[in-house]
C-alpha cells in the first residue's frame, strides 16, 4: 500500500474517532452532580479520589493552498492536567503533540514533536494577588493566551500573534484580578531570565524578559488590554527590544469585535523594528453558525513591504466542544508563507 494512502487511512481513522467521541459526549452533558461519571463536558475528567483534572483538545485540518497540493493533517493533540486541592496551591501542565499526522509534502520537515506548552505552580496569596512560577503562555495581547483551536474563531492564527514574540516563556509572574476597581481589572507582571523549560526547537525563546499585561473591563462587555515587555530573544533577532501592545474585545448578543496591535522597537536600529495587528469581526448567522471576517498586517525587520491578510470564513459550533471552521485567506506581499487559500478544520475540546 503506498505511504500516502496509509497516512490518509490513519488520518481518517483519527478524525473519525475524534468525531465519534465528540458526538457521543452530549449523553453526559447534563453536568449535574451525582451523575455516574466523573467526566463532564468542558470540565474534563476528574480522577476519582483525587483533586486532579484532565482535559484535552485536538484539531484536524484540511488546507488547499493555491501553490501546493491539498493537505490533510492532525495538527495538534493537547493534553492538560491540573491539580487544585481547593486550597491556595494549584499546579497546571499542558503537553501538545505537534504535527501528529499529515498527508503531503507541505508538512515535510515538520516532524512530530511533543511540546511542553505550560508547566507551572500557582499560589494564591489572595484573590487579588497570586504568584506563578514555571512555564506559561506569554501574556501579550489576547489571542496567545487562548490560542487553543476550539477557543478561537478561525483555523488560521493572526500573524502578529505568531511572529512578534515567543508563544511561551519560563519565569515568574504576579497576577490577579481587581474586581472592585472600576468595572474590574485583570493584571499580570512577569519576568524571565531565559532559562526556558524544555524549549521547542522550532521557536525562538526569550533570553530575558520583563513585562506586564493589564486588562480593563468596561460597560457592555468591552475589554481594553495593554501590554509592555522589554526583552531579548535567543537566536533570530538581534538586540534588545521593547514591545508595546494593545488589545480590545467587545461582545454583545453573540456579536464580537476583537483587535490587537503590537509595535516592537529594536535598539539595533529602526530597520529592525517590527509591527503588526489585526481586527476581527464575528456575527451570528443562525443559532450555531457564525460569520467571521478579519484583516491583519505584519511588518517584519529588514523588509520593505508589509504583509496583509484578509480572512473571511464560517464557524459552526456543532456543540460547545465540537467546532467546524472553513475560511478563505487572501494575502498580499506574502514573503513569509502566511496562510493563503482555503483552510478548514474540525476542533474538539474534551
Amino acid at each position: 500500500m503506498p505511504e500516502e494512502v496509509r497516512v490518509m487511512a490513519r488520518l481518517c481513522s483519527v478524525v473519525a474517532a475524534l468525531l465519534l467521541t465528540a458526538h457521543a459526549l452530549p449523553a453526559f452533558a447534563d453536568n449535574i452532580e451525582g451523575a455516574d461519571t466523573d467526566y463532564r463536558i468542558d470540565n474534563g475528567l476528574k480522577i476519582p479520589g483525587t483533586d486532579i483534572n484532565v482535559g484535552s483538545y485536538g484539531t484536524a485540518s484540511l488546507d488547499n493552498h493555491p501553490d501546493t497540493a491539498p493537505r490533510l493533517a492532525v495538527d495538534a493533540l493537547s493534553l492538560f492536567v491540573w491539580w487544585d486541592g481547593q486550597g491556595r496551591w494549584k499546579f497546571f501542565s499542558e503537553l501538545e503533540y505537534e504535527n501528529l499526522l499529515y498527508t503531503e509534502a507541505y508538512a515535510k520537515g515538520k516532524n512530530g514533536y511533543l511540546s511542553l506548552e505550560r508547566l507551572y505552580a500557582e499560589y494564591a496569596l489572595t484573590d487579588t494577588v497570586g504568584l506563578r512560577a514555571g512555564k506559561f503562555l506569554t501574556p501579550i495581547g489576547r489571542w496567545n493566551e487562548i490560542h487553543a483551536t476550539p477557543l478561537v474563531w478561525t483555523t488560521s492564527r493572526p500573524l502578529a500573534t505568531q511572529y512578534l514574540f515567543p508563544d511561551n516563556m519560563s519565569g515568574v509572574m504576579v497576577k490577579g484580578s481587581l474586581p472592585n476597581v472600576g468595572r474590574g481589572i485583570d493584571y499580570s507582571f512577569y519576568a524571565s531570565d531565559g532559562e526556558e523549560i524544555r524549549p521547542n526547537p522550532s521557536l525562538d525563546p526569550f533570553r530575558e524578559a520583563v513585562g506586564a499585561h493589564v486588562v480593563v473591563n468596561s460597560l457592555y462587555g468591552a475589554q481594553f488590554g495593554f501590554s509592555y515587555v522589554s526583552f531579548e530573544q535567543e537566536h533570530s533577532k538581534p538586540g534588545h527590544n521593547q514591545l508595546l501592545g494593545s488589545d480590545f474585545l467587545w461582545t454583545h448578543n453573540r456579536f464580537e469585535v476583537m483587535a490587537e496591535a503590537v509595535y516592537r522597537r529594536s535598539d539595533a536600529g529602526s530597520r529592525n523594528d517590527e509591527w503588526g495587528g489585526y481586527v476581527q469581526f464575528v456575527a451570528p448567522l443562525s443559532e450555531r453558525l457564525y460569520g467571521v471576517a478579519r484583516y491583519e498586517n505584519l511588518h517584519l525587520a529588514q523588509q520593505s513591504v508589509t504583509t496583509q491578510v484578509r480572512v473571511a470564513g464560517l464557524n459552526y459550533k456543532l456543540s460547545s466542544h465540537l467546532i467546524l471552521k472553513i475560511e478563505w485567506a487572501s494575502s498580499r506581499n506574502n514573503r513569509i508563507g502566511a496562510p493563503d487559500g482555503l483552510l478548514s478544520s474540525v476542533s474538539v475540546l474534551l
Partner: protein
Amino acid sequence: MIAAAILIAFVDFVALPAERTGAPPFAVIVASDSDTGRITRDDAASIFRRKQTFWKNGLRVQPVNLPASDPLRQAFSRCVLGQAPEALEDYWRQMYFQGVLPPRVLESERAVNLFVATTPGGIGYVSTCTNDPRITVLITFGDVPNCPKRTAVCVPLQDS
C-alpha cells in the same frame, strides 16, 4: 481601536443602571457559620465567575448553580452576571483552558439548601427561604418568600 474606546467610554458615561423586571425573585444564601461577611451583587458576580475564590476569612468559596435550563438559574445569571448561562459558554471554555471550572451544578433548590447548610464556604441561590438556622441570606433580588429583605438591583444585561 481609539474610536472604539471613545465610543465605549461615552456609552459608559451616559448609561444608567437599570433594574431588571419580570424575573423570578431569588435570594443568595450561605452557611450561617461561614463568617463570610456581607457581599454585594458585584461580589456575587465575581464569585460565580470564579474570579473571587476566597472569603474574607480565608475559606475557599464553594459556589453551586442550578442547571442551565432552570428558570431560577436563568434569572440569577441574567441579573447577577448580566448574561444568560448560554452566553457564558465561551467564557467557561476559556477558563477551562486555564484550569478553572465553573461552579458545581446541583439539580434542585433542595440540594442547594442542603449543600450550603453543610459545606464550609458554600454559596447558592434559592427562590424561597427556609427556616433552617444553618443558612443565612446575604442578598435578595425582589421579594423572596420567607426571606429578610437585603435587596439589591440587577446588573444591566449584556446579552439577551
